């Protein structure tokens, strides 16, 4: 059986098993076992992929298989991965498992929580393993809709408002996307028998330039909404702030990557001419996201809002790098997706742990936590340093690559925007270090904090699951970078560079 199919079957079976589970203990055990298996399967896929590549297999997509679904319309379920999707699948598996550990103490309707969480993850896995626009769209919506219940039922603050806003904005994005995808289908010529949804066939056949000009913006904006493209990013801060910990982790860590991945894999890959023509406009928007997100984060006092705005900035950088339309910058974009996914998930996990203990997320109300909660605080510092791009951690590798790639454009427009985007990184340092200084350092400002319980085993497991890869990528980025670089060949071919 195809290993990619396994990545869909395991979470589906986990959901089924959860439906028959009774108590909280049973539900979380089932979830951990299921997602643990998924974790193993994802790493197995990674090694199998590397082995294939090492043995000289240079196909664009590996582990491909194709199942006919609706034959009259030539809708198929096509599976296949390249280095980019493998990296993102592994990321998803890590973040999901960590999320399950972090939700260990879920009280209210635990079974339903885990079902929704894993349904969301299933959507994400499906999105990354498919090579077919129809199933891609299906999994995209499947990943979005559980968010409504997850935020609405288990969230905090103005949760009903945030949940509705997030769902509607993302579904609005998917509305544009649907039009774009159908446009691609009806303009496709690659298949032997009529139109096709298959990515590789569409790419091989090419889309007429006039059609590209109409459908590129629709597709890019459709995916861009999920990637927090300005001005469609407003769901993100509210959604992240209201969501329960594990959902924020999955959402910022993985779900927002769907947007970047979609822009890269569908919008730019299939419509390269329109992409080069219109890149300038979207560079303006994404460049603005980067700067605006960074300055937005400075003004916030709520930890979750700080990280939500920082996510807008970092995800904006992903789209910004993709639009540079060259190999180095795109390589950086993928690295940034992975690095940001791990680091934001870690941030949100730690914020959740802090909130559980101090019952506040306002930075100024906390102080001296390093003395009472050394483990959590140290992890927070690590996440912060990765976020501001300290060499030796994953953030540096990604951002460095992006800016080197962006600087390959010699014209004034690209240079100016690149410099502006780089300056946003400096701003990152401001808000990260300020939080670390106020919240973690200094004297303990609340006597009650002296008795805060240390991190439990499941919290430590969750945090370590995320820190290890951050450090690993930072220390030894080359193998990952090579894996991604090789997979960028098809899109570079498409762009005619």
């Amino acid at each position, binding site marked *: 059986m195809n290993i990619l199919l396994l990545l869909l079957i395991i979470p589906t079976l986990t959901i089924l098993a959860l439906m028959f589970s009774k108590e909280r203990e049973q539900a979380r055990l089932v979830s951990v076992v299921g997602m643990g298996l998924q974790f193993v399967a994802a790493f197995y896929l990674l090694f199998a992929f590397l082995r294939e590549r090492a043995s000289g297999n240079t196909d664009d997509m590996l582990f491909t298989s194709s199942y006919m*679904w*609706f*034959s*009259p*319309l030539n809708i198929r379920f096509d599976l296949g991965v390249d280095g980019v999707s493998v990296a993102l699948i592994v990321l998803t598996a890590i973040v999901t498992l960590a999320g399950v550990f972090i939700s260990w103490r879920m009280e209210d309707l635990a079974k339903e929580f885990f079902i929704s969480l894993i349904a969301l993850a299933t959507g994400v896995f499906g999105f990354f393993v498919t090579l077919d626009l*129809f199933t891609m769209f*299906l*999994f995209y*919506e*499947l990943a979005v*809709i559980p968010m*409504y*219940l997850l935020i*609405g*039922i288990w969230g905090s603050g103005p*949760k*009903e408002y945030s*949940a*509705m806003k997030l*769902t*509607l904005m993302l*579904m*609005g994005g998917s*509305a*544009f996307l*649907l*039009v774009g995808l*159908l*446009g691609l*289908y*009806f303009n496709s010529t690659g298949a032997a028998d009529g139109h096709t949804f298959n990515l590789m066939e569409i790419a091989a056949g090419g889309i007429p330039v006039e059609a590209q000009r*109409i459908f590129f913006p629709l597709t890019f904006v459709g995916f861009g909404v999920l990637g927090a493209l300005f001005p469609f990013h407003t769901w993100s801060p509210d959604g992240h702030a209201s969501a329960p910990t594990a959902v924020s982790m999955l959402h910022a860590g993985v779900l927002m990557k769907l947007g970047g991945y979609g822009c890269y894999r569908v919008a730019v890959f299939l419509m390269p001419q329109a992409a080069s023509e219109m890149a300038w406009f979207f560079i303006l928007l994404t460049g603005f996201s980067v700067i605006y997100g960074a300055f937005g984060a400075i003004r916030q006092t709520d930890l979750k809002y700080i990280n939500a705005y920082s996510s807008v900035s970092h995800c904006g950088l992903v789209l910004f790098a993709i639009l540079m339309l060259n190999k180095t910058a795109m390589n950086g974009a993928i690295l940034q997706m992975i690095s940001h996914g791990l680091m934001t998930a870690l941030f949100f996990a730690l914020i959740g742990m802090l909130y559980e203990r101090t019952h506040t997320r306002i930075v100024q109300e906390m102080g001296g936590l390093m003395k009472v909660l050394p483990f959590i605080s140290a992890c927070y510092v690590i996440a912060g340093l990765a976020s501001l791009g300290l060499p030796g951690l994953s953030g540096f590798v990604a951002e460095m690559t992006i800016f080197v790639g962006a600087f390959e454009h010699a014209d004034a427009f690209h240079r100016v925007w690149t410099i502006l985007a780089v300056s946003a990184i400096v701003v990152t340092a401001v808000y990260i270090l300020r939080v670390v200084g106020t919240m973690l350092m200094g004297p303990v400002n609340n006597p009650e904090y002296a008795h805060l319980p240390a991190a439990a085993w499941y919290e430590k497991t969750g945090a370590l699951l995320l820190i290890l890869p951050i450090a690993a990528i930072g220390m030894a980025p080359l193998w990952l970078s090579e894996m991604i670089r090789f997979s960028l060949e098809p899109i570079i071919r498409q762009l005619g560079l």
Partner: protein
Amino acid sequence: MRHELQLLAVILVITCAEIYYSGKDKSGVVPLSIALFGLHALAGWFPIGEGALFGGMYRTHALIHFLKNVLDLGVLVVVLQTAGWVKKQLVPENRVSEFYLLLWSSLLGMYYMISSGDVLMLFIGLEMSTLPVAALAAYEVLRMRSAEAGIKMILMAGLASAITLMGISLLYGATGTFSLTVLSQKLTGTGLETLGFIFFFAGVAFKISLVPFHFWAPDVYEGAPTGIAGYLSVVSKGAAVFILMILLLGFAPALSGIWIGVLYLLAILTMTIGNLFALRQQNLKRFLAYSSVAQAGFILLGFLSAGQDGRASIIYFVLVYIFSNLAAFGVVHSVEAATGKENMDDYEGFYRVNPRLAMVMLLALFSLAGIPPLAGFFGKFFLFMSAAAGGYYVLLLIAVLNTVISLYYYLLIVRAMFLRKSAHPLPVIQNDYWMRASLLICVAGILVLGVSSGVYDYIFGLCVRL
């Protein structure tokens, strides 16, 4: 003709059967009716040849046969859902067999309508399918709202059929024939023909409750017994969609220059107005009425692709819609039967008390909203594909944005059921076996119909001809 004869036999048996139940308690008629209709629905699936009768007034072939089976399925679910209500309300009043008589006569009318090869036959079928439903809407005579629903329906239906007749006479005047086949050859799109056609169209549009012929729907749905509201919104609407599809795509492609423009406009109006009005509804039956108006707007997208895919997407959507909408009506019905409540606020905290019913409702609403992997997603996707196949991308964009609006109000109910906690939640609701069976059928349909592609492929194969 086998379908019609079978149903007629069932009707006659039930009419006579009452005599054999001695004494006051005639509740035995209910299971007998359900069993007989179940048999009829099952027997309908045996294949049948094609042919024409009465000099071409009546015709049938594999597709028409399938459409009747789809309607049977809808009526079967309705019959199951109303069983509890019939036993509780109608048995003491001794008005059981009339109920089934009326319901099935209306279905018989729909059979004739779909099978008609002749405009007059079509008109008779249309009337026969509408009038009994007006009586059914007023079936709880002593409840004022129900009587109001009945009178409203009959007045509007009367107006609609008058306009239809006007259209028919104009068409006859222009072409000199009633036969659809001859008509389709003679139609050239002159002014008189166009006028006649538009009048004719209005009558059918009334049954589908397209804007601006939709005003009766919310009032009638709210007043009528819930099971009948479900019947109106699903079976009656489905049959009208089928006949519109046969007429427009099968017999009037010559006039497509006219009706495509009309449908384009009506689709936008119907979706948007249905959605905007649904946003503010508190009463769930009114809410479902407006949501089903909006759904009708989506169906019109399927007409814009002349090929096999367009027809297949329409039929497939109606099939999916039967399951999704009747599941929603079933839950509303069981809540209403147990507590008499039908407002959205009453559903607050529903999941914590009645998790299964709430899950059914969730699936139904998500299917109506078009969320994967439920059947509704595939249904809508294929309709959208038809619009895109015709090249109507602007309409497509309006339609998909409308689905986002519709998602908002479907989520409002989900919010009440799942997100909110209530100080006075609804009690635990115990449904009878019939209702459970009907919900089970619906849920199975919602879950299976989309993911397994066999049904769509089958329908697509049947759509070779109309």
